[in-house]
C-alpha cells in the first residue's frame, strides 16, 4: 500500500499458484511463541513470526501514571508499541511516530475489550510491545505477543487474542502478508479475534477491496486467528511445563 510512484510491481505468485515464499494463499508464515522470557516484567512473551521479532512485556495492575488518567471503577490499559531504530531497513528515529501512536491506541482498546477491568479499579495494566525486527505484520505479532504476556502476568481476560492480517495481492486474497506482498499488494486488513465469542476487537484496513470480497477476507482472517490461537495456548502450556506454577511466578517477577 502507499507505494504510489514506486518501482514496477514484481510477480507475487508462481505458476503453481504459490506465493513468493512458497506458501499457499491461506497459509501462515512460521510462528514461534515463547512465553515468559523476561525477568523484570510481570509477564512477557517473545514472538518470531516470519522474519518479525517482537518482544512484549506487561506490568500491572499497578498505580496509574500519569495520575489523572486513573478511573474509579476500572483498570485502564496503556499500550506502547515501539519500533527499535534498527528494526527496519532505513534507520527509524527513536521515539513514537504517529503510526506507532495510532497502533498503540487501537491495541490498548483491543485489550481493554477483553480484560476484566472492573476487578482492578484505579490501576493501569501497562502493555509494552517492542518490534526488534520488522517484516510486515508487526502489529498482529505485537498483539499475539502482548496477549501471551498478559496471560503470563495472570491478568484475568475473557480470552487470548490471536491476530493476523488478510491481504489482497495480485487480485487474490491471501493470509498473513509478507513484506513484499505488503509493499506491492492492493489491500491489508489486520484483525484480532476473541475466539470464545467469534468477535473482532481490532480491525483496520487500507487499500482496495471490493465489497464482494469482504466476507471472504474476514472468514480467512478468522480461520487464521483460530490456528494462531492454538499456538498461543501451546506456548503458555510450555511455559508451565518447563517451570511449575510456584516456580514460574518467581521467574516471571
Amino acid at each position: 500500500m502507499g507505494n504510489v510512484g514506486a518501482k514496477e510491481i514484481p510477480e507475487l505468485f508462481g505458476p503453481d499458484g504459490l506465493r513468493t515464499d512458497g506458501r499457499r494463499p491461506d497459509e501462515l508464515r512460521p510462528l514461534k511463541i515463547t512465553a515468559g522470557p523476561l525477568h523484570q516484567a510481570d509477564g512477557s512473551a517473545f514472538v518470531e513470526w516470519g522474519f518479525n521479532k517482537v518482544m512484549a512485556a506487561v506490568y500491572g495492575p499497578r498505580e496509574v501514571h500519569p495520575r489523572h488518567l486513573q478511573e474509579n471503577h476500572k483498570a485502564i490499559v496503556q499500550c506502547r508499541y515501539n519500533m527499535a531504530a534498527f528494526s527496519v531497513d532505513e534507520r527509524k528515529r527513536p521515539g513514537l511516530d504517529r503510526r506507532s501512536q495510532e497502533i498503540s491506541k487501537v491495541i490498548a482498546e483491543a485489550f481493554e475489550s477483553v480484560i476484566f477491568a472492573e476487578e482492578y479499579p484505579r490501576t493501569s495494566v501497562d502493555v509494552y510491545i517492542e518490534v526488534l525486527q520488522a517484516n510486515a505484520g508487526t502489529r498482529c505479532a505485537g498483539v499475539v505477543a502482548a496477549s501471551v504476556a498478559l496471560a503470563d502476568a495472570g491478568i484475568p481476560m475473557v480470552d487470548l487474542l490471536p491476530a493476523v492480517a488478510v491481504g489482497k495481492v495480485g487480485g487474490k486474497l491471501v493470509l498473513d502478508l509478507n513484506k513484499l506482498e505488503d509493499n506491492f499488494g492492493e489491500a491489508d486488513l489486520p484483525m484480532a479475534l476473541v475466539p470464545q465469542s467469534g468477535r473482532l476487537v481490532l480491525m483496520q484496513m487500507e487499500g482496495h477491496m471490493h465489497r464482494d470480497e469482504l466476507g471472504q477476507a474476514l472468514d480467512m482472517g478468522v480461520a487464521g486467528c483460530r490456528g494462531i490461537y492454538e499456538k498461543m495456548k501451546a506456548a503458555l502450556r510450555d511455559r508451565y511445563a518447563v517451570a511449575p506454577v510456584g516456580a514460574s511466578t518467581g521467574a516471571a517477577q
Partner: protein
Amino acid sequence: MSDEVTAEILSTHILDLARQGKRLDGRTPDEYRRVEVEPGFVVTADGSALARIGDTTVLSGIKLEPGKPYPDTPNAGVLTTNAELIPLSSPTFEPGPPHPRAIEVSRVVDRAIRAAETIDLKKLCVTPGEKCWSCFVDIHVLDHSGNLIDAASLAALGALTHATLPQKRFGIAEHDIPLAVAHFPVECTFTRLGETIVVDATFDEEKAGQGRVTIATDEAGNIVAMQKGLIGAFSPEDVKEMAERAFRHGDRLRAIARGV
C-alpha cells in the same frame, strides 16, 4: 449529582432506547443528522470546506507548496493530513501536543484519501526525485458533537474537490489550475449500542457506545479503509452488514461533499 453519575444515567437511557431501535434525538439507527458541506469557506487556503453533521462542525483547508518527493516514491507528490482537535471545540480537548485520538482522526482520514487515490500523486510530481507539490490537508475541528471522523472526511473531500494548484503564487505558471480529484472516498462510522449498531453517533451516544467501526468506501464499490476503535467487539457478520450500510450512505454523502 456528580457528572459521572449523570453521564452513567444518560448512557443507560441511551442503551435502553437503542434496545427498542430508538435514539435520543428521534432518529432511526441508520439515519444521519443533517449533513452540509460549504466549500470555499477560507480564501487563504488553496481549497477549503466547512462540513456540518448536526452540531458537529469541522473545517478543512488545503495548502499546496513546492516540495521534494520521498526517496522511495520519486515520481509522486507528497500528501500530508493533519487534524487538530483544538480545545475550542470541546470541553474534553486540552491544549498540548496532538493526542492519540487526534492522530487517529488524521490517520483514518488520510488512509481513505490515500488508498482511494483521491488525487493522483504522480501528477503532483514536477521533476522525479527532485521537485514535486506537497499537498497539506489540515483539519480543524470547531464544534465536537460526535462523529468527528465522518465530518473530517467530508470536510477534507470537499476541500480537495474545490482546490486549485497555486501555480501563480509560486511563479510557476500564469494561471492556477484545478487540483485533479480522481476518486471520492467517504467515511461512514458506526457505533455499537448493545446489539443495535447506529450510524453517525452523537457525542453522548459515543460515550455510551461499545465499540466503533469506520468504513470508507469509494464511488466504484470498493472499501478503501476501515478502523475499529474504542472498547468493544464486532462479529464478521456485523462488519459485513455495516459495510453494506456504508455503501448506501456513501453515495449520498459523496454527492453532498462534491456539491453535485
